[in-house]
Structure formats: C-alpha cells, structure tokens
C-alpha cells in the first residue's frame, strides 16, 4: 500500500539563519492515521508539518503525497489535501466576521450554495462558535480565536488535518472540545496530525506518537510504547516527561498506563 503522506530523508536548512531545523527525517503516514508529534521547543515539529502542505520545501529529500513527489505541486493544490491550523490564530485570521473567515477556505476550493453553507455551519458547530457567526473575530477572546482558526480549516474538509499546538490557551472544556473535533475527524477517515506539548492530551487523543529531537525522529510508536518506562530516557533527552498517570502506573508495577482511564482500569483489575 502506498503511504498517504511521506517524508523521505528530508533536510531543511533555513536560508536566513542557516539553522538545520530538519536533519534527515523519514516519516510515513497512512490514510486515516491519528498521529501526534512531540518534542522540545525548537526540535523541528512545526518545520516538519509545514512541509506537508508545501509552505516549506525540503533543502534535500522528498515529500510524497500518495506516492508522488509534491515538489512540482503548488501550495494551492496541496491546500485541497492538507489543512494546516497555525499555532497562533492571529497569523491566520483576517476576515471581518466569523462566518466570512470560515467561508474563505471552502469558497476558494470551489464550494458554493448548500454545500458551502453546510460546511461552514458544521465547522462552527464542531468548535462551539455557532452563535458567533456574525461576530468580529477580534471580539472573541484568544482561546475562541484559536477555535475559529480551527473551524476555518475544518470547513475545507481536506483529507488531512494538521494542528500545530491546538490546545494552548484552552481551558478544560476547550481541550475536551478539541479532543472531540480530532476524534470526529478521525472517525470519518480523515488523517489527523497534531503537534502538542500537552502529554495528557496526546496520550488520551492520539494512536501514534512521533518524538522529535533537534530535527530528527527519535521514537515512533503507540502511546503505550512511547510513554512506557523503557522510553522515558528517550523522552527525557528531548526534555519531555510522560503523563503523571504513566509514571504512577509504572511505579505501582501496573504496566503501561499512559492515560488516567488506563491507570484506573489497572487499579480496578489489581483490586479484584
């Protein structure tokens, strides 16, 4: 089977600074996968995902979409396939109303009429902004602007969704909402790739975790594998630590418990 998205030995050196942000990354992602990318600040996570929609091009190596090199594909064409939500919503938002902001992407992809209306309504509904369609985006607080940026990409209904730090600045309900959005997209077969420093969110939301350090992938596996005690040294080398539930589970000899739910399950089993 051909991989949906693949990076082959990708190196990226920022021309302005000479910084080697990606140092030979090979990563294959199948259609419909749910993948988190974690790693210390500056480890290359955002640089990596910007290669998936052509915003950045490799200094060397190749990026493939359905097995074809995207080198000759325009950003406009890739935007139909990969929707990227930036870390900072203010780098994305420009329209005068929430509805206009969310309409912009799908309209550019050619959606019109009922289909456009449904796409916009569905996206606003998913992030809980259905009542704010007429609001000015800058009348929303920072956390809701972030949800708006997410909605505007959701509405494009791209096969792949890339979220750069989707939970920053969100309260407990906001994080839960984003988890539901991610899982709903996954349930209908979209590929979702998320960057996050929130280890609990990662463990509870994603099926595969890719760990980066200084421009390289140093671990790649399920949350169970990546957060298992055997992997802690690897995590520590990129200044991460496993969720508290995983640490407590390992300390109590309960095996891999990357989430609270898993820890509670293990505690219940142990009590029986």
């Amino acid at each position, binding site marked *: 089977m051909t991989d949906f998205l693949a990076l082959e030995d990708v190196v990226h050196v*920022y021309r*302005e*600074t000479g*910084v080697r942000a990606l140092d030979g990354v090979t990563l294959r992602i199948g259609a419909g996968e749910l993948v988190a990318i974690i*790693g*210390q*600040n*500056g480890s290359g996570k*955002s640089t990596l995902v910007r290669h998936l929609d052509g915003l950045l091009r490799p200094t060397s190596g190749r990026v493939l979409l359905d097995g074809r090199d995207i080198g000759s594909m325009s950003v406009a064409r890739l935007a139909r396939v990969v929707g990227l939500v930036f*870390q*900072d919503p*203010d780098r994305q938002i420009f329209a005068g109303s929430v509805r206009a902001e969310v309409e912009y992407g799908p309209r550019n992809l050619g959606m019109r009429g009922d289909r456009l209306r449904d796409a916009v309504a569905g996206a606003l509904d998913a992030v809980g902004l259905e009542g704010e369609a007429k609001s000015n985006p800058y009348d929303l*607080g*920072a*956390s*809701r602007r972030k949800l708006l940026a997410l909605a505007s990409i959701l509405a494009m209904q791209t096969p792949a969704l890339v979220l750069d*730090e989707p939970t*920053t*600045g*969100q*309260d*407990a*309900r*906001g*994080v839960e909402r984003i988890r539901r959005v991610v899982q709903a997209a996954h349930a209908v077969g979209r590929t979702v790739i998320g960057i996050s*420093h929130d*280890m*609990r969110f990662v463990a509870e939301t994603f099926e595969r975790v890719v760990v980066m350090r200084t421009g390289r992938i140093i671990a790649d596996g399920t949350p169970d594998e990546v957060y298992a005690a055997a992997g802690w040294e690897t995590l520590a080398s990129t*200044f*991460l*630590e496993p*969720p*508290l*539930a995983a*640490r*407590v589970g390992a*300390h*109590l000899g309960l095996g891999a418990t990357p989430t*609270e739910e898993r*820890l*509670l399950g293990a*505690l*219940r089993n*142990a*009590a029986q």
Partner: protein
Amino acid sequence: MLTLASVSYRYAGATRPSLRDVTLELADGEVLGVVGASEAGKSTLCLVASGLAPRTIGGTLVGRVLLDGEDTAGRPMHAVATEVAIGFQNPGTQLSGVATTVYEEVAFGPMNLGVPRPEVLRRTETALDALAIGELASRDPDRLSGGQQQLVAIAGLLALAPRHLVLDEPTAQLDPAGTRLVSVAIGRLAAAGTSILLAEQKTDLLAAVCGRVVALADGGIVMEGAAGTLLADPRLAELGVAPPSAVRLEHAARSVSAAAAASVARSIGAVGE
C-alpha cells in the same frame, strides 16, 4: 504592594463589564495565581493590574488600582510601567520588533529604563542563563519557534527586574522543561521581593509556585484561598478549570477504593509531583 480595590472594567464598545468588583492585594514577594475558564476575565485582570487598561487601550474603569497604597489614577503609562511589568500570552505581542538579536531583545527593557550598561549586560546574561537560551543569543527573535520566542519574552521580563510582574499564561507554548525553567525563575524573582500575578491554565505550575490562588468566573472573584486547598477544591472543575494532575489522579483513584487512592497518593509523592 499592588492593590485592586473594588475594580470593575468595561472594554471600549462593550456592553457589559469584563471585570466586576474585583478586590485583591498582591504583597511584595508573593506569587498569586489566577485561574478561570476562558473569557472569565483573567487576561482583562492582567491588563488592569498592569495599568494598560484603561490607560493605553481605553475602556472604563471603576474602582482604584494602588501601588504601595497610592492611587495610580492620573499617572502616565511610562510611570506605571517602571513599577509593573506585564508578560503577554502571545510572545509575538511582547517582543519589541526592533531588536535584531535575542541578546538585544532581552536587554531592550532595562536599556529603556536607563539602567547602567554593565548592569544591563549582567541582567541580560543572567536572564538568558536562567531560561537556558544562551545559545540563542545571536539569533533573530523573529526567526525562532513559538516556544523559543516565549522564553525570550520572559527573559526580557526577568532582565527588567520589576517590583511587580503580571504574567498572562507565560508558559502556553512551552515544553515541560521550559515550563519548569519559568517556574524556577518565578520562584527566584519572588524570593528577591518581586510580587507576581500569574494567570494560568496549567494548574500544575500554579501548585508549584503560588502561595495563594484566586478563581475568576464571569469577571468576578468566586473563590480565593491557599493554593493547596483551592486547587484541590472540587468546585474548580465546575468552573471549567482542570485541577492539577496529582489532584485529578487521587480523586479518580478514590472511585476505585480508598486503598487505591492511598497507594496512588504515595506513588505521586515518590515520582515527584
């Protein structure tokens, strides 16, 4: 000491106030945490405490903001800013945009305050060290990752050595190691006498550095108390605030059995939370 006395604040053009009758006192050397759901008023409180609202951004303020017991009404922004520094949630807002290197950016604040040059250099290097970003010193602040920019912005605040520091989600974009460095830096500043108002969603961080915490809902203070007690209060979750991981886990383990809760609590102690 920074005091808010019955402060209400309404943004220009808004129909209702974003802050309602807030009274709080921030003692020298104290770290006061602020929690609350999104749009509960945390950022507004930061803007008011720092003097930017209404001085710079307009709007209507009722009540008084006092520095060492003196009403700040009528004092111009530059006079307030030498006493109270603010760190914004988004480092893009914070960075000066005029410095071409991280070193210059961190030195920008104390240079502007007329701090003597050797002292500026000393503070800049200390701040870079404290946040482990010495190796970024010659980089362009505009060309850093989001998390790196946030560390640079905080280093700039450390270099100011302000008497009062207001921080609006200073670690939103930071990895766990960066968050820990900021936590240590906050503790050091407070020990040196700076009073710190810290608005955060990361209650794990608040549990580590705050003596006291207030909870906001709909612009008003609805809970207030010692950090350990308040952050373990079950009502916090109803406000839309995630309790610290340790509190959540212990609470969840209680639903299994008292014995499970006790062993989880012991284990949390052992693994260092």
